[in-house]
């Protein structure tokens, strides 16, 4: 069960600029914080978020432990042609989540 919320318009005018917002469930454990036993909780973060439009990479974000838990990212994209926006989060402990949304361009 991937827990991702993506907000993107279902339709857009050709050439218009649309906003894409994405939220994902993830602790973003910094690796600097002691746990209840006093030992440092190992780092567990999302390191990278990438977005593609019909397979072409259009946006990329390298994250650090300073990104808040349950990371939120918003960015814009030119609605060039109808297709699929692919979102991908990768990080520590083999974390990989992918999500796709379709945008129809008229």
């Amino acid at each position, binding site marked *: 069960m991937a827990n991702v919320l993506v907000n993107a318009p279902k339709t857009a005018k050709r050439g218009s600029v649309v906003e894409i917002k994405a939220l994902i469930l993830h602790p973003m454990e910094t690796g600097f914080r002691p746990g209840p036993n006093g030992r440092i909780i190992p780092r567990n973060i999302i390191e990278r978020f990438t977005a593609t439009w019909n397979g072409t990479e259009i946006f990329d974000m390298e994250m650090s432990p300073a*990104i808040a838990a349950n990371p939120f990212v918003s960015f814009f994209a030119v609605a060039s042609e109808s297709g699929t926006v692919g979102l991908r989060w990768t990080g520590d402990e083999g974390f990989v989540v992918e999500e796709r949304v379709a945008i129809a361009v008229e």
Partner: protein
Amino acid sequence: MDHQMDRRRFLAGTAATAGATAGAIVVLPFGSASATPEAMAAAIRKVVGDTPIREGRVSLDLPPLVENGSTVPLVVSVESPMTEADYIKAIHVFNEKNPQPGVFTARLGPRNGRAVVGTRIKLGDSQKIVAIAETSGGQFWSARADVIVTLAACLEEAT
């Protein structure tokens, strides 16, 4: 002491190249009362090298007073036509007081239409945040914001 030294070196480095470039160039005017922690200055230099950093074109939107530093909304917007010929290729955000100076680096291009990125960050304490935008032509523009983080009133159990 070290901070002062580093700040001078940092300013000297940027000022030297600044002299060679025409136009209104403002060396990042960090307040003299709070010298830039060296880690942030070093991290910025790693990204910009010897290229001067101009102030402007970038706006950094953060609440001035944050009720809890664990989730602080932040939006960086950069003025740019975002065309093949002239676009913003990267936005870097740095902070002074978290354990690591780098917050995020976003890479973008003409396909984005607008050079605007939003996210949420953690701030352990009141501090200065710096956003630097890198143009396709290799220029760096910046904005700073001071954020005041209120401290929780009650100490909670560790849960």
